[in-house]
């Protein structure tokens, strides 16, 4: 019995040390292999938070009421958008060193550098298309009125009454906007409300042949679009 126990002790004592050495080798090699993996994970330091913050700041600068493109908050003028590429560097100097791309409904407006792999921020906007409409109404009677077919924020009234006829007052929706007892003659810019249809009423003494009153206004036709700003730092 003593001999058998001693025999097993011999085997363990002699084999233990190499087994321990092999075990240590295994653990150390695993540790160094995992260091390679960790190195790869840490090596890829991305600048994503800064990219996202700058893209959001630039998108807000484009879309806010302060923006050179905007007529009011979130409503951008179409002709100014089309010319953005030329005016971008002077209008937005804080974006000078960036690789960026600005698209409207997937159509590229401005591209600087190579913004592949950057982060994007999207905003919803309305694109306002303003063309000038002119109407020359034929007015007759003593209280003559014409209603503008589209809403606008201002209307330019050009009055050229024939001699012998005086236009004393112009009312918009029963509110007096122009009044001259000596007679209105010439071009006047009248501000009206965007929110209501404008009915222009003239107080006239005498006939007004067609062509003596001309109204020019710029209604906005809007369509929705998505403005996307991509920044790669």
């Amino acid at each position: 019995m003593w001999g058998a126990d001693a025999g097993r002790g011999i085997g363990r004592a002699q084999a233990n040390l190499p087994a321990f050495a092999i075990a240590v080798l295994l653990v150390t090699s695993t540790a160094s292999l995992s260091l390679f993996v960790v190195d790869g994970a840490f090596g890829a330091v991305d600048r994503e938070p800064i990219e996202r913050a700058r893209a959001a700041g630039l998108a807000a600068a484009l879309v806010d009421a302060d923006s050179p493109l905007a007529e009011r908050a979130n409503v951008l003028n179409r002709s100014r958008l089309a010319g953005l590429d030329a005016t971008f560097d002077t209008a937005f100097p804080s974006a000078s060193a960036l690789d960026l791309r600005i698209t409207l409904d997937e159509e590229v407006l401005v591209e600087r550098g190579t913004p592949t792999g950057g982060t994007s921020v999207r905003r919803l906007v309305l694109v306002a298309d303003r063309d000038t409409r002119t109407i020359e109404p034929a007015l007759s009677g003593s209280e003559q009125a014409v209603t503008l077919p589209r809403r606008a924020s201002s209307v330019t009234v050009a009055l050229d009454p024939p001699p012998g006829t005086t236009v004393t007052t112009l009312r918009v929706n029963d509110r007096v906007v122009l009044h001259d007892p000596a007679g209105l003659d010439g071009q006047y810019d009248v501000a009206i409300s965007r929110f209501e249809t404008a009915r222009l009423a003239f107080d006239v003494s005498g006939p007004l042949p067609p062509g003596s009153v001309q109204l020019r206004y710029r209604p906005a036709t809007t369509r929705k679009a998505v403005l996307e700003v991509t920044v790669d730092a």
Partner: protein
Amino acid sequence: MTRHRRVTRATADTRAVSPAVGKTLEIGMGVLVIALLTSTLYGSVIPEYRADAGVELADTALASALSTTETTVPPPGASVSVSTQVRLPTTIRGSTYEIVANGTRLELQHPHHRIGRTVPLSVPSRVVAVTGTWRSTKPFVVTATGNRSAVTLHIGGAV
């Protein structure tokens, strides 16, 4: 009978190393290996990784400070004082840091040579000045004062 005793004696003599000494050698080897690993890791590998993590954290903190500053602008035509606050980490890689505003840029200053970043601010032209220095031991507060045509932003600790 004589053979039996010889076998026993030979067995006792052919042991290479006694278990006690063997275990001691194992312990010694183990301690050596652990010391080697620890010194290698803490000497070169870990400080680099801490700096990498610090760089990313500094980016996140500075981005948060930037967006908070840029959105603390009162609407045009308003003559009000606006103040916003955001939580930023107190330390990056174990040390406190500062964010300095000078005119058009926000700069994060940190004692470590790899951590530190400057970003330009994009604010409307109504904003005439952005001033202030913020230490990370205080909450980050941005205050906008002024009238409808000239707004000043100031970053700093809690009011």
